[in-house]
């Protein structure tokens, strides 16, 4: 899931200061689950920003902001607003902005990473969406996302007691890989030299597109 956190409220207020009627668009999927931009957070933000008494807020919650059909349901609300505060991830904010001709669309969140929910209110990064998965080689622990240096062939010298040199609260990704492979009895995999990889499948190759040719019947 996409994990995000809310921007500092004063920053949000500053970006909204020129608009009288603001539509707060929560997003009902990832950012709801990570307690950053769901309906509850939107209501709380609306209540907090309403304290000044100078602006009007309305909260809507599309199921997802990354599908046009869900956004279409709220076109009327968008028209009535001076600006839209999107509480979706960066993708949702942009998609909302594409739809809202002539309306400023302002982000309320900082989109952080692709991660998992480890406990109530605690998420960790697991994937960077690099487009070329090698988890089968690394015991199901991603060296790209979970090693601070994205090393492919073992930890750096800064790994000590299973912790990363960047911050002792970060587990060394390669320690995790080692532990996993050991438990799988696959330590031999560590001897393989993983060659420099092709990053063109990652964002280094430019903005990515994906087409399922069997679903797309008319070529674009």
């Amino acid at each position, binding site marked *: 899931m996409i994990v995000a956190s809310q921007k500092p409220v004063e920053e949000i207020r500053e970006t909204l200061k020129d608009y009288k009627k603001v539509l707060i668009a929560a997003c009902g999927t990832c950012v*709801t689950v990570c307690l950053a931009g769901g309906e509850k957070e*939107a209501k709380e933000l609306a*209540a907090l920003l309403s*304290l000044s008494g100078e602006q009007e*807020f*309305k*909260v809507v*919650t599309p199921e997802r902001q990354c599908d046009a059909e869900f956004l279409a349901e709220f076109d009327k*609300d968008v028209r009535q607003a001076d600006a839209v505060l999107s509480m979706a991830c960066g993708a949702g904010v942009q998609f909302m902005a594409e739809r809202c001709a002539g309306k400023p669309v302002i982000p309320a969140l900082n989109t952080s990473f692709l991660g998992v929910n480890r406990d109530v209110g605690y998420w960790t990064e697991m994937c960077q969406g690099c487009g070329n998965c090698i988890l089968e080689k690394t015991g199901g622990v991603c060296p790209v996302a979970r090693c601070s240096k994205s090393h492919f062939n073992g930890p750096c010298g800064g790994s000590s007691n299973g912790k990363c040199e960047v911050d002792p609260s970060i587990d060394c990704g390669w320690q995790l890989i080692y532990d996993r492979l050991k438990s799988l009895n696959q330590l031999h995999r560590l001897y393989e030299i993983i060659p420099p990889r092709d990053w063109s499948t990652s964002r280094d190759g430019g903005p990515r597109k994906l087409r399922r040719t069997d679903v797309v019947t008319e070529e674009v």
Partner: protein
Amino acid sequence: MKVIVVGKSKYRDAFQSALRDAELEPVAVETAAGLKNLPEELPVVLLYDANLSPLIMEEGAAEKAVSVLKPQDAVVFLMDRDEDANPHIEYRVLETASRLASAKRRVTVLLRSCRAPDERFDDLYRIARQKGVTFIRYESLDITENEGIYTVVARDGKLSVSIDTPLLVDCGEKPSWELQEFSDALRLRTYDGGRISGNRWFLNQGATFKRNVRLVDTAALSGDIQRIMPALVKDILALEKPAQEKTAFVDAEKCAFCYTCFRVCPHSALGPDHGAAAMKVNDLLCEACGICVAICPASAIEFKAASPAALGDKPADAASGEPAGAASGDKPTDDTLGNKPAGAAAEDRRRTAEVPKETAGGKLKIFCCENSAFIIAKEALAGTDVKVESVPCGKDIEIEPVPCGGDTDIEPAPCGVNIDIEPVPCGGAVNAAMMANALRSHDRVMVAVCCEDACRHRDGNKRCIKQVERLKSRLDSLGYDSGRLSYVRTGVTMVEIFKEAALKALAGGEMK
């Protein structure tokens, strides 16, 4: 009614036959895995044999031990027990010690704290003293072993005693992994060593946070099962009805299936409904604390009234402590998921929410936990113009204005000050949006929750205070006076503290 009897206790057969006598239908489950196939809301009795030294628990073990001891050998019992452990184990220790002393062995009982749970203990203690058992209180112990002989050095302040013994009996209870497994399977909360943490154990002994699970410590019974049966059967039968007049209800359409409620519910009342791809409240387990309602990130959980049928002939002021009354509305059934609960506004599919308009309110609004602050609010706020904003379960609880200088010896609040009180089932039912909205209509807002660790819903009070702290820092960063928002921890007798907090809140100050 089916009752699941969990555990491998040696008392299980006797226990099951006692349940049958009470016209209940016991179902034995021996492994944690066996629980998975059974409905979650069935009453569960977890039989638990304390894991203790056989010398004190098994008949004849003491005599056997005596036979291998030389007459001059010392026997030392270490009776270092917790307060919440059951006193029957101590009876056994005293009895065993007395028997060994009767056999002319030198017996010493080392205690860290003295216990006198009841007259029986007093009697056994007196007998043991008469038989020649030595009792020594200690603060710290050193134990060393050399070729089967233990040297125990007990210290108490500046005094110390050293005893050599071939037989050192640790009377403490050992953690049981089996119990831990059952606890995990039943979603019970445990603390160190796998012991089950109760729902404020003193409120309801033997109960757990989960309403349908009761813990029976067989050591406490010493085989006398009948002693506990009436109360146990009463509790089991009470499980046929929801705990509360209102329960939480998940709107499956809005639910993001995020498991947040599942993780925070102190009573394990929420579970997944995979068919509907949404969470579902188990009405029989829900205690209506409102924590999930407040925290649900999709705002998908609301309260609904439990159906009159489910509540049945439940009389007013029942043991649950909740007033009964205007329970109304239809209980949604599984086959009518679209059937919205009474009271839940039937929102259209577009899911829009109006931000409440600012309404003219009083000077101070207090969210009061019904378990503490709301009980004392009347007394504490004597002399102020108090209005109760909304009342749970439709029953009117009136807090009438008391003229200034009433009969309390508390300094009265200024006359004519409007204080609005909103009772909440738990501090955890108050979220930041509620507080922020209250700040729009009131000069000051305070939440009054139970003292730390005293929450009936485990950590609702903590959740509330954390929300207050976060909201305060957000108010600060917006440049508002965060002193307008405050909280107080209070108990059912802390009238003066509640009063002071309210007065301070009115003045814009803060309580620590």
